[in-house]
């Protein structure tokens, strides 16, 4: 079995998990909820195995080109999806908020589908600039941050949908979905997880740039956009300390932050030119 097949398999499981999560909400069946979360876990295990297998596969290729599967767009999108599911599972374990999955799992599913539809899944040798241990640290920290922001965005969408629908008529339906207050808090928590990771991602990127390019900061579009994302979430975190910046405004700011994150991740490589062009192939 190849890693590509395993990735397909994981995508299918995520799809099934999403359907199950939707059914949980429609049928208000808690036992189905356990099945849904078990399915997400199953998908996560297959997904992790696929990433591991791709790593092994790269070492089996001729020409000693083995490297961690974090070097191009396809591999990063796959890792992004993996990080989103990881953060979701952690939130479920620690905070018992499994129903946010109905908004979070589609992000991972979308990323996996995108990777398989448009990504180039060939394993290619690393160009000299990428041959560094910093590659792993930098990519892993950045994407854990991005994934936490994706979860924050999903929770914010959920918040806006729920607040637009108004207070639920039947009290019973409120049981499965978290309350607005809980969603607001989850949004904040997700960003509190993501922000230190993004900071670490920018710092490792700067350290690496200093080794590879001779300067830790050159206002390259990728660097600048990562700083823009950092500014937006720093504003979010400080806005929480002042009155009147929770709820809908916080949700919108979180969505804007994630839009900036996506542009930093995809838009910069696809639309702007710069030094950091590895992720566009």
């Amino acid at each position, binding site marked *: 079995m190849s890693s590509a097949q395993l990735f397909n398999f994981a995508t299918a499981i995520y799809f099934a998990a999403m359907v199950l999560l939707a059914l949980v909400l429609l049928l208000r069946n808690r036992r189905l909820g356990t099945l849904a979360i078990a399915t997400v876990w199953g998908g996560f295990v297959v997904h992790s195995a696929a990433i591991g297998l791709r790593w092994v596969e790269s070492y089996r290729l001729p020409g000693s080109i083995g490297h961690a599967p974090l070097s191009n767009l396809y591999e990063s999108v796959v890792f992004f999806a993996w990080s989103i599911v990881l953060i979701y599972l952690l939130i479920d374990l620690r905070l018992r908020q499994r129903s946010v999955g109905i908004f979070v799992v589609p992000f991972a599913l979308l990323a996996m589908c995108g990777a398989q539809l448009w990504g180039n899944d060939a394993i290619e040798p690393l160009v000299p600039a990428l041959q560094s241990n910093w590659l792993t640290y930098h990519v892993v920290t950045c994407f854990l941050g991005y994934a936490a922001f994706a979860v924050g965005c999903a929770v914010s969408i959920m918040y806006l949908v729920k607040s637009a629908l108004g207070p639920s008529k039947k009290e019973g339906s409120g049981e499965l979905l978290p309350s607005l207050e809980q969603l607001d808090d989850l949004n904040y928590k997700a960003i*509190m997880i993501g922000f230190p990771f993004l900071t670490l991602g920018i710092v490792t990127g*700067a*350290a690496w740039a200093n080794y590879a390019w*001779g300067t*830790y900061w050159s206002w390259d579009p990728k660097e600048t956009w990562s700083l823009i994302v950092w500014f937006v979430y720093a504003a979010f975190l400080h806005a929480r300390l002042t009155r009147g910046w929770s709820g809908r405004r916080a949700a919108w700011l979180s969505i804007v932050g994630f839009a900036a994150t996506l542009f930093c991740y995809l838009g910069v490589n696809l639309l702007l030119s710069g030094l950091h062009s590895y992720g566009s192939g």
Partner: protein
Amino acid sequence: MPGKSHPLHALWIFLCSLKLTVVTLLLLAATSILGTVIPQKLPLAEYQQHYGEKVQILQALQLDDMYHSVWFTALLGLFVLNLAACSLRRLPAVWRSVSRPPLVADEALLRSLTNKTLLQAPCSAAEAASRLPSLIQSCFARPRQAIETEDGVCLFAERRRYARFGAYVTHLAILLIILGAQIGSWYGFDSFVAVVEGDTVTRLPASDGQPAIELGFGLRCDDFSVSYYEGSARPKEYRSLLTVLENGQEVPGYVQVPVVVNRPLQYLGLTFYQSSYGMAEMPLFRLRVKLADGNETQVEGRPGQLLSLPDGGALQVIDYTPAFRDLGGAALVEVRTADGRSLPQIAASREVPVDMHHASPYRLRLLGLDERYYTGLQVKKDPGVPVVWLGCLLLVLGSLGAFGLAHQRLWLTIRSTAAGCEIQLAGSSHRNRQAFARQFERLQKQLAEELGSGNPAPEEDRS
């Protein structure tokens, strides 16, 4: 501090405001986008070609180098002032509350806490007071010295009080990073030097607005090489072997140091990075030629040179590729036969298949080529880098601490009652209150069990 009506006071209040922080951060985010859309630091002519008339607006706003423009620097300055003012204003209070915490939970403090309960125990107050410190230590943290008050015996314990400083460490880190960047721009420089294999340089050439710089030592390039991934033209490694010379003598430890893309050479505060390379001169090709009559001969020459053969024909090297199919390095050769025909032929380091010989009377083999490269080194001096790294370290630790760690505190008051004693237990956490509420509940059960009290009486406002 200035008086209340003083305009300086108004300025101070403005600089301390969190609203200013949020607005400045969002402004920085929004304006930074411009520099990623408009190409930076191009010559004026290119902007004119691109933007036509609008180039004047562009220049007036310094958008061609916006991250160093007056207005962007001013915005960053405002951000720094705001950050420093906020920290200076809030730090003393935080310092006081951490260094001199309220050791006794009075009425007012109790009212402000959401986690509190009253435990009844059958033992005497004195016994409870002697057992509780070790109990609290085992399940929370070691309490401070007990204080006797009119109300009863009071205990106070806290965990991770340094977590309160996370935000301030983060702020200090940002100031350090900006300071480091300033030191770099004041005392550092960025230059480039090309060294031909075998040559030694002692000065960095002048470059845009920067005078030539004497190195004070010699830097020799012993060798430069590019290696390729097997069977492809994809480069694997660019490697220079560099040697440092002081007064013409090789410096021990700096002889033939391999410098590759992610591994620069550092010497006396200067860093040399592998940045580019090129041919110093045309390479010398060595070819073995098998003539039609079976005799072999060897010729050598540079591209463009006509290399004559004993049978009256001639060869001329046209082009070269380091990896040609599975034949290794290969040269494209223009063959002129003795009878005046002219045809292309490939000479590779391995045997070329017969069907690729075309109609040539010769069998060619590329024995080797002598290339003389130059290596392009980026040279950087930045004494601000250690300060920036210290800032980065504090930034990461500070933000992890600010969001991941919570300062937790616990207050106990032990009072005598008719049936034994009662213990007023209260706690607070400066972050992640939900998790602390669960922790508090466990703690209170544990204490109740240990002291042999019944079910703890639920407090009225534990909502």
